[in-house]
């Protein structure tokens, strides 16, 4: 008795294009091409400046020299990268698991949140360089102490974002669940967790970078104590030896790692939310 709907669905994805637009007009291409163009220009300018003004290599090495050092010291540098990356990933995983658990505890009870949230903030605002020496003294295993430091740095955004997400439930949907007499567990599983996902992934993006920063900072502190062979330690050593090209090469590796981590999280977020959330949806 009911005829078809009066409306047509909004096209869900870009129409299969008959004639593909020129390469330069494609958004995906532009997203890679323009930043790359900036990089090429800056590096070119840098190379020209160093050569033209004959800048000594112990002040500013040329990009070419940095690249050569990267190849020459590959074994040393990539070994160090592996160490740093290991700490970063461990810390990131710990921060994620711990942060989510704490967020769940906060959401289950206002009392718990009120009692503990100030201490989460305290953790966040205390500079890691100030507590790292203590942790390194207390924890005998050097890797474990570094992981703890980096975890402390990366933890807060996960707690804050996930808590916010678990609370950011559409009030209408909440009423609907209540009307259908949904249990606490059903509300958590079917409503709170899916609603929290976009916020959680936002937290992941921030924390991935922070875990790396935490790992590097902790290595700096530990390095002066004689432990660790991560990238930060290499930078310190190169500094003592005035091996500036190697310093730059190590720095480059840290930066690239940070960008790749961020990109991985962005991709993960897109993969998980792409189909439904506005932040990841394609806008025409």
């Amino acid at each position: 008795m009911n005829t078809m709907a009066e409306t047509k669905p909004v096209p869900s994805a870009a129409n299969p294009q008959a004639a593909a637009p020129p390469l330069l007009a494609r958004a995906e291409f532009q997203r890679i091409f323009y930043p790359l163009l900036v990089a090429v220009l800056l590096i070119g300018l840098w190379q020209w400046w160093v050569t033209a003004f004959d800048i000594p290599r112990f002040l500013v090495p040329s990009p070419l020299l940095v690249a050569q050092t990267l190849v020459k010291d590959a074994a040393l540098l990539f070994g160090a990268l592996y160490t740093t990356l290991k700490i970063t990933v461990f810390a990131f995983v710990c921060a994620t698991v711990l942060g989510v658990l704490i967020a769940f505890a906060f959401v289950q009870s206002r009392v718990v949140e009120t009692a503990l949230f100030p201490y989460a903030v305290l953790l966040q605002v205390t500079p890691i360089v100030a507590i790292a020496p203590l942790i390194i003294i207390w924890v005998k295993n050097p890797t474990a102490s570094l992981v703890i430091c980096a975890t402390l740095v990366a933890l807060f955004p996960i707690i804050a974002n996930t808590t916010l997400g678990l609370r950011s439930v559409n009030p209408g949907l909440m009423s609907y669940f209540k009307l259908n007499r949904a249990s606490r567990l059903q509300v958590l599983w079917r409503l709170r967790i899916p609603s929290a996902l976009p916020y959680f992934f936002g937290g992941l993006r921030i924390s991935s970078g922070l875990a790396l920063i935490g790992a590097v900072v902790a290595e700096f502190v530990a390095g002066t104590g004689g432990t660790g062979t991560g990238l930060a330690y290499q930078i310190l050593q190169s500094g003592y030896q005035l091996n500036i090209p190697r310093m730059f090469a190590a720095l480059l590796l840290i930066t690239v790692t940070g960008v790749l981590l961020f990109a991985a999280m962005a991709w993960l977020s897109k993969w998980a939310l792409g189909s439904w959330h506005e932040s990841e949806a394609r806008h025409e």
Partner: protein
Amino acid sequence: MSGAEGAPAVEVLSVEKTYPNGTHALQPVNLTVQEGEFVTLLGPSGCGKSTLLKMVAGLLEPSNGRLLLWRKPVEEIESTGHRLSFVFQEPTLMPWARVQANVRLPLDLAGVPSAEAALRVNDALAMVGLDKFAGHLPRELSGGMQMRVSIARGLVTQPTLLLMDEPFGALDEITRNKLDSDLLDLWRAKKLTVVFVTHSIYEAVYLSTRVVVMAARPGRLIEEVRIDEPYPRGPDFRVSTAFSHYAKQLQDSLLRASGGVEGALA
């Protein structure tokens, strides 16, 4: 054609609502909705029509008075063999779930076996004309279609009482008229009892067997108008003399209650 009016489905007995902040949302109200009726609560913003509907659904506690559904308190509606569904002003769909999963939600929450749930979801989607869109995400649908999904979710539990809180308020007029007429078809086919909230005089006249006019500050009932027109009501009814007559009567009633032109239709 308003169905066999037998037992009272909804009884509102001296129900009153004062919010904790002191706002007197609703003065004591008495209202009976017979089984099979289509009753519309019509009034301006702040007249307490939504508040009243939410109290009937058990979403809000009345400050005073009693509410009965088939002579039982809301919590015991299951024992009467009846079921109620509430359709909100917004579609309130889960954006991460496909249409099918959204409609199945109340069945999942109630623990209905999945084979039976799937059948009922298909039926409900067919009723609102969306069977071809089961696999779509809400954001891929227009506002009108999202509202249809919301109605399908309301119907999938096979309710006997449908409570609707300005369900089509956010839609354009053409879509709204279409949904209104589809809703009447469903009401007649399923022998539902409907309590509908709107601030549109025309929607009230078109849909209802009876219109309850309400006024604001403080929220109260001021008049009941029976729309004695046969169903099915086609598009011609909207432009008939009788229609204008009822619309005029409701408008005058709203104007009188607000003490003048100002604010009556705000």
